[in-house]
């Protein structure tokens, strides 16, 4: 029997979930540390909700084991698990008012806490989510954002070991979503409860979480801090999912102790010296080079470029978009094709921005180009 990491609040050991022929989650291994904010990120249908539901107890794994604080909980129904969930469409009880909704969890406890205490804690909770005074309102008298807060209060009042949130912000409009993201983050720090959030919005995952778990087709691809995932993605899929990147396909030509030479499909030879588990590559392996748009340096004159460039090419400016602080250029090189460049204003190496159709020098330093397996 596999055992759980004792520090972990939630652990998955080789967890698989099948619905008939569909494998919704496959061989998941995961430890959620106490007090952290973890996000599941991935495209629609990749098994995020399924993973969350196995923590909550709505679904039981077909294989493998789920642990809560070191206790194996396979087969334990949802109502006996010390976790709570914020549902995607909140699932607030329409026949109860706000106060009754928030108090619901406490009232199910045996023995039931005295009504004085329930009242007090409901008051505290509503204050925490800034809804004091809304006690007697009905659900449909609340805005989307307010309902969201009620759902949070209803879950948090039970002081769960883990709070599960399934795309809690998806139903809100853009502006409100930004506000709630910040609020959720603050809330999590204040209450110190472990949060596990599901989202398919990468910006949301990266801005709020301590760690992000990237999923694809029922499998965990990579787990790490937002910075890790951005700087050290293990493959093209992660690099593509986390932030923008330019990808150039090719194959390993030669591996030295210090650098890799990649021969791109277009014939260009590129030197790169970073990328995780380079040891696992061999000559001839198909790979891709990933370069973040902000790591490409543009200049009019050769001497303005840094010395250790991994690549140096001439490219034509196809398009230019001002984004305030930054300018986004779309460049085209005959061999490399089109690629994006994000250039900070104050760093622009020339007096004035580059113009459309201008031919400029583009380069990136050797250690910013990542060699990734192209799966």
């Amino acid at each position, binding site marked *: 029997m596999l055992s759980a990491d004792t520090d972990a609040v939630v652990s998955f050991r080789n967890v698989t979930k099948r619905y008939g022929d569909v494998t919704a989650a496959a061989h998941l291994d995961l430890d959620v540390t106490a007090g952290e904010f973890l996000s599941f990120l991935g495209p629609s249908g990749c098994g995020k909700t399924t993973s969350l539901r196995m923590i*909550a*107890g*709505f679904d039981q794994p077909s294989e493998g084991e789920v642990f809560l604080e070191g206790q194996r909980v396979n087969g334990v*129904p*949802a*109502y*006996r698990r010390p*976790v*709570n*969930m914020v*549902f*995607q*469409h909140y*699932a*607030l*009880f*329409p*026949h109860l008012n706000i106060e009754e909704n928030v108090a*619901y*969890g406490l009232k*199910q*406890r045996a023995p039931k806490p005295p009504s004085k205490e329930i009242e007090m804690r409901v008051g505290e909770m509503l204050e925490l989510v800034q809804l004091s005074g809304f006690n007697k309102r*009905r*659900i*449909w008298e609340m805005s989307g954002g307010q309902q969201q807060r009620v759902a949070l209060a*209803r*879950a948090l009042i*039970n002081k769960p070991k883990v709070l599960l949130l399934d795309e809690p912000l998806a139903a809100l409009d853009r502006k409100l979503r930004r506000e709630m993201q910040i609020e959720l983050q603050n809330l999590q720090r204040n209450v110190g409860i472990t949060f596990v959030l599901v989202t398919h919005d990468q910006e949301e995952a990266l801005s709020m979480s301590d760690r992000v778990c990237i999923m694809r087709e029922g499998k965990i691809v990579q787990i790490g801090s937002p910075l890790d995932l951005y700087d050290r993605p293990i493959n093209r899929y992660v690099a593509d999912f986390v932030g923008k990147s330019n990808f150039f396909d090719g194959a390993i030509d030669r591996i030295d102790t210090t650098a890799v030479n990649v021969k791109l499909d277009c014939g260009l030879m590129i030197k790169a010296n970073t990328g995780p588990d380079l040891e696992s590559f061999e000559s001839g392996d198909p790979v891709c080079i990933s370069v973040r748009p902000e790591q490409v340096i543009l200049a009019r004159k050769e001497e303005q470029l840094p010395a250790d460039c991994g690549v140096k090419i001439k490219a034509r400016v196809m398009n230019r978009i001002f984004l305030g602080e930054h300018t986004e250029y779309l460049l085209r090189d005959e061999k490399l094709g089109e690629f994006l460049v994000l250039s900070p204003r104050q760093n622009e190496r020339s007096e004035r921005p580059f113009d459309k159709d201008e031919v400029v020098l583009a380069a990136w330093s050797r250690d910013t180009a990542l060699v990734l397996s192209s799966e």
Partner: protein
Amino acid sequence: MRIYTLAVYLFLYIPIGIIVLFSFNAGRHASDFHGFSIKWYGTVLANPFAMEALATSLIVASTTAVLASIFGTMAALALQKVKGRIRAIYDAAIYIAIMIPGIVIGIATLIALVTAFKFLNPVLENFWPGFLGDAPHLNMGYASVIASHTMFTMALVIVIVRARISGMDRALIEASADLYATPWRTFWQVTLPQIFPAILAGFLLSFTFSFDDFIIAFFVAGTETTLPLYVFSSIRRGVTPEINAIGTMVLTVSLTLLITAQFLLRGRGSQSSTQ
């Protein structure tokens, strides 16, 4: 177009209006209106046959409504979890129960029960344990009318409640479980309040149906007389203004119940369920 619509509504409501109007007619004959009076209501209330029929109908209709809404709701809840061929069989039976003409139900029930009683009564007499007193003699009457009405209205309740269940957000059940409520408590605290308007609507429709039904009772009531049976035989004996008064009372009751039921089914829907 508007005029046409108006005409159709008049067509639907004028007969009802005429009954109400003439129930307040002081004169004996419908043709001449002799001024306003409530004397026919007095006549009806003083008529022991009419009152007994009313009592019978009330007993039958309320028992039917109670049984149909309880059994129908139970079945609707259970059928959610039933799949495949068994489910198809239940669906077919419910569909047949609703679609088949009342007259066929009436005669079928009549001959089935009369035949069954013919076998059962001697058996009961022979094997009835003496300490329980005299053996009961099974006969057509209250029970057969109630049983037959319950069959039809139960199917109706199943359909209504099931529609409500399938319109219900499943996440509410999970939310309740997530908040530590056992399935039993979830049922009482979430499911039941959610489907309650549908149950109540089903109850009211069942009551109205049973209270108004003529054709099934015509066959299976035995020696009992329900209000529609009484009205029918009065009409057969000749038109009397008393019927207008009964009609008005019956219509008032049905209309009130029906409009309440409609309101519950359409109304604010899932939102104001327990208010």
